[in-house]
């Protein structure tokens, strides 16, 4: 199948020149005397966090715009350089706090790449199940908040209700509702509890019904349709040039999903479809999110079947130089005690080298670049944040739109500011 669907969204490129992320007021189209510059954010409730947009308005029309970020910069990358490899695992999910499980997976996969460490298959399938559940979690938050911003308040309560049952599943597996630190270098921190698969199956059935209901609410809502269709256009070429990924890219007609194109974990062993829409507007981005939730349920169900078939298999590798030894051995084995002590005080070492690992997070291409000098702490950690890249497109997608649509469009790029600012 062709990667790019040839559909004309608009002619040529709309990326502003010379600065691709700053739209300057065009004096031919607008009288400069009429321009009112408005600071939109950083503390505006509908900017998905602390995003600041400096908007030049001509009446209600957006004539110029640029995004200002950095209000949530917390120095994760610097902090991780000062922590041991295994302590840094806790930082990764807090970067993108909505798709925490995906970021945790990303960092753990990158460390395992440097270690060239094989992971037991039960851990791989459990990771897949949890990251797909996390994708649903992320999309639910996106859907609820985006609909809320356009006045469909009721949807927020429905989606957060479903999100709550999702968080129950994460709590069952990892002990905490968010930022579980459940993925460990080498596998999982603990085995999945026996009731996990049956409870998740119940959730899956409920979730499919919920998605249908959400679509029924929104697809017959005239206001929702009016405000999302043909708004915030982005062509396939512009999306690629601006390094857009995930649902934004797929809504512009590009059939690109890393789970299919460059599979990791065991995505080449599951059946699922990649939803692609070709109008490149807010409505199509919404459709991609809805379809992806259904596909995620499909993947989760296949993972659960596999997990049921591999009960009692190891869930973490038996590499005592990297992985904490089993608790019960600590009381009887001197060697185990020494390993435990060394791992907890000094941490494990990672061979010298560098690696760049990328996964398809709910927001798209999320990458982690690690450099090790052979010691117990990372030399350099760098996260390629999909939200950071997504916000580069603001100046391209909002051209000549109305200020009210700005909220719908900025929301449709699905930025999480913790991810953008790190």
């Amino acid at each position: 199948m062709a990667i790019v669907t040839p559909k004309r969204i608009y002619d040529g490129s709309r990326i502003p020149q010379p600065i691709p992320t700053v739209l300057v007021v065009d004096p031919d189209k607008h009288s400069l005397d009429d321009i009112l510059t408005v600071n939109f954010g950083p503390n505006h409730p509908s900017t998905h966090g602390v995003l600041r947009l400096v908007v030049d308005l001509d009446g209600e029309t957006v004539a110029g715009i640029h995004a200002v970020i950095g209000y949530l910069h917390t120095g994760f990358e610097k902090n991780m350089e000062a922590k041991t490899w295994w302590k840094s695992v806790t930082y990764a999910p807090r970067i993108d706090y909505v798709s925490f499980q995906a970021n945790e997976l990303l960092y753990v996969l990158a460390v395992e790449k440097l270690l060239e460490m094989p992971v037991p298959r039960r851990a791989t399938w459990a990771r897949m199940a949890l990251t797909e559940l996390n994708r649903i979690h992320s999309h639910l938050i996106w859907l609820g908040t985006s609909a809320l911003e356009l006045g469909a308040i009721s949807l927020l309560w429905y989606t957060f209700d479903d999100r709550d049952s999702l968080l129950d599943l994460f709590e069952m597996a990892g002990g905490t509702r968010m930022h579980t630190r459940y993925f460990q270098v080498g596998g999982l921190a603990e085995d999945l509890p026996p009731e996990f698969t049956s409870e998740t199956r119940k959730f899956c059935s409920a979730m499919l019904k919920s998605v249908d209901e959400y679509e029924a609410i929104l697809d017959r809502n005239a206001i929702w349709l009016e405000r999302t269709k043909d708004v915030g256009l982005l062509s396939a070429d512009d999306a690629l040039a601006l390094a857009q990924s995930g649902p934004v890219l797929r809504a512009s007609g590009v059939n690109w999903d890393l789970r299919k194109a460059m599979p990791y974990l065991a995505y080449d062993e599951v059946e699922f479809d990649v939803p692609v829409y070709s109008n490149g507007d807010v409505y199509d981005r919404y459709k991609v999110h809805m379809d992806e939730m259904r596909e995620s349920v499909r993947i989760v169900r296949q993972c659960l079947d596999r997990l049921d078939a591999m009960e009692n298999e190891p869930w973490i590798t038996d590499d005592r130089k990297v992985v904490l030894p089993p608790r019960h051995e600590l009381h009887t084995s001197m060697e185990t005690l020494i390993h435990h002590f060394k791992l907890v005080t000094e941490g494990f070492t990672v061979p010298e080298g560098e690696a760049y690992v990328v996964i398809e997070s709910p927001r798209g291409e999320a990458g982690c670049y690690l450099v090790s000098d052979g010691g117990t702490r990372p030399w350099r950690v760098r996260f390629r944040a999909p939200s950071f890249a997504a916000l580069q497109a603001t100046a391209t997608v909002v051209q000549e739109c109305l200020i009210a649509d700005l909220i719908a469009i900025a929301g449709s790029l699905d930025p999480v500011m913790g991810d953008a600012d790190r």
Partner: protein
Amino acid sequence: MSTYASVPGIVETTEVHGQTIVAVDPARLVEACLHLRDEHGFNFLSDIAATDYLGWGEVGVAGYVGTAGGRDLNAPGSQGYARTPEPKPNRFCVSYQLLRVSEDPARLRVQVWIDDDEPLESVIPVWPAADWFEREAWDMMGIRFTEHPNLVRILMPEDWEGHPLRKDYPLGGEPVRFSDAE
């Protein structure tokens, strides 16, 4: 290996953990990027990652890496053998993570090695997405990009001094004001 031999200014091609790294001459970076985009189809700039190698190999030594998975316990750098890491060609390394979005997907890392205060040419004309990535590399690492139309800080406040991700940036160096000092 010979796939990228025709890239302008190529210094060497290495393969680490199944990932291809192409080191190019900093002076011919944009030329090399244009070639990779047009001839090899790398239409997507995934990331620009700058790394500071100040003090590389001075602190800490390579530890033990032998495991049950079959790694050699007695090779240099393994358990029991202290080893300092391989020296690097220069202080800063800027890695351009490229991706080919097509039916034949591929990733490639283009690296340039530069010294402190040595400028690089901006790749915005090749991939517009480089705009914020380069601003972040400037903000965090102090890499200067010539021809960049808007090279200002992006994550730190505009009046911030220093570049926080450099290895010589003081940790916990933010001054705290106490009332008795006024």
